[in-house]
């Protein structure tokens, strides 16, 4: 199994438990106090330059001309339609990938079959594809000169430069999020509880709803949150398929770009600040789930859970 949460592209990983407080007396396995503080200072300074300052700049620029200008930028009809489209696309992409994630995790985590590791690698594939190429593939398929272009034109169906294309590209880039949260989690949980339910006479659906779902609900939520953040924030892939039609095919990130290129910086940052808030809420929810599951989301599953369970079953019948 080549699956490890901490080892995957674009992976969502998590936060560790605090270390126990170290005693004040310096041990031979600890650094001198001056060195510790120097390292902490350098690390914080690095994070400040690359993460904290840009984040602060978004809100600073957004509110530069005062609260009224800020609100005015957000209630602009084009801004509102961009917000609506972003919500719509997320409402399509997240449930689609949730259903897929559960199905993929059920097949991969609860059953043993050949070619499983290949399947897992393939599920991860979209993360190693540049967002721009993720958009390009759909242009090659459904664009005016694409494979299905003539057929689509005949039936007057628009996919590229329209909402379906944006939704497709978003589904592509957010494809692995839920599956990759659920697979290691469900593998670590094994199959014994479900087997007991089936043996006791529960139907497959009952078993899933009453046994599996309660066990994976936090993992499911975790995956959905990350999937949603990326779906709402995707830029490159959506930029290729959208056509940037104002008020029609502009999502929030695309609208930010348009405003920025028109030198309406304050308005661009105002819309961007909504996306930055979304990111902060995402991080807060993520930390909350990690705390709620006792850092459980943080713990990597055993490397070969199936093999280990099998081993235990054989050793202690």
């Amino acid at each position, binding site marked *: 199994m*080549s699956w490890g949460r901490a*080892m995957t*592209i*674009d992976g*969502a990983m*998590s*936060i*560790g438990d*605090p*270390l126990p407080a170290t005693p004040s007396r310096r041990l*031979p*396995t*600890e650094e001198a106090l001056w060195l*510790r503080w120097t*390292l*902490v200072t350098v*690390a*914080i300074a690095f*994070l400040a330059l690359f993460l904290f*300052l*840009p*984040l602060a700049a978004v809100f600073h620029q957004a509110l530069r001309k005062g609260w009224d200008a800020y609100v005015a930028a957000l209630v602009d009809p084009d801004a509102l339609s961009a917000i609506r489209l972003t919500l719509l696309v997320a409402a399509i992409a997240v449930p689609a990938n949730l259903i*897929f994630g559960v199905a*993929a995790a*059920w097949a991969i985590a*609860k*059953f*043993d*079959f050949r070619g499983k590791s290949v*399947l897992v*690698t393939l*599920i991860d*594939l979209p993360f190693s*594809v*540049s*967002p*721009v*190429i993720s958009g390009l*593939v759909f242009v*090659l*398929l459904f664009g005016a000169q694409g494979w299905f272009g003539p057929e689509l034109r005949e039936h007057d169906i628009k996919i590229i430069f329209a909402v379906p294309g944006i939704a497709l590209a978003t589904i592509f880039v957010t494809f692995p999020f839920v599956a990759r949260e659920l697979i290691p989690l469900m593998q670590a949980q094994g*199959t014994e509880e479900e087997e007991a339910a*089936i043996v006791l006479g529960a139907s497959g659906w009952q078993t899933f709803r009453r046994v599996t779902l309660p066990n994976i609900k936090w993992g499911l939520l975790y995956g959905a949150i990350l999937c949603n*953040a990326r779906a*709402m*924030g995707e830029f*490159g892939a959506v930029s*290729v398929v959208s056509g940037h039609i104002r008020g029609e095919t502009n999502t929030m*990130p*695309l609208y930010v770009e348009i405003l*920025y290129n028109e030198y309406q910086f304050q308005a661009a940052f105002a819309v*961007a600040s909504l*996306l*930055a808030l*979304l*990111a902060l809420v995402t*991080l807060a929810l993520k*930390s909350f789930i990690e705390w709620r599951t006792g850092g459980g989301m943080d713990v*990597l599953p055993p490397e070969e859970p*199936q093999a280990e369970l099998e081993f235990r079953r054989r050793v202690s019948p």
Partner: protein
Amino acid sequence: MNQRVLVRPSVLPGFGLSLGFTLAYLSLVVLVPLSAVFLKAATTSFDVFWATVTAPRVLASLRLTFGASFIAAVVNAVFGLLVAWVLVRYPFPGRKLVDALVDLPFALPTAVAGIALTAVYSSKGVLGGALEPYGIKVAFTPVGVVVALVFIGLPFVVRTVQPVLEDLEREFEEAAASLGANRWQTFRRVILPAVGPALFTGFALAFARAIGEYGSVIFIAGNIPLVSEIAPLIIITKLEQYDFAGATAVAVVMLVVSFALLLAINALQHWARTRGGRR
């Protein structure tokens, strides 16, 4: 797993349905669209493909994309290790908040990161303005590209190294100390080798992500042809000129490198595991 059976029998239901749905959805959403790129490339003659890929502007963009991604991944390997170390070993006020914020590049839309970095590092920005008297220009130069890619790649290194540091047995460090090693020797000879595979994996992940990155880079890069134009932007430019064959050719080069990296990362993970970086 028993190699002779295709599927191990189980009392659980739904295998056919869930696997069937998974394969169908995977094929429709990912595999068929991706194969379209390679099929499109196969219909272009090799001469056209080669002429496109070796055009000066394309070559310059590929050089910038790979070069800047490499530099950014090196910066991230060094500072990512430092950040992970500080977060794991030194309790300081606000550590949990800092720890949570390390994931910001995962959660912040890339376009927002792009305009925010530009605001900070352009000559009118806080840092850009401070650096300009020293003759250092960040925004609208290749340095700006590196800055954006450092932002994007940082969490990959921190989050791959952090769990390994947390699991590191203190006994080894104690043994080293009792044998007379100072802290620097212990770090170099005991800690670094144990963290090495994870650090290298984090480096590879940051590098792979940086190669494809678009949104955060285009605002700060300035996109000057032959100077600060990245390969994904070349694809977009070619698409806007309806040069589908050209866009596909550049895409194929990038995809091949990305897939090779993906395989390398898988091999790295295997190496990290068998080497015992994690139990």
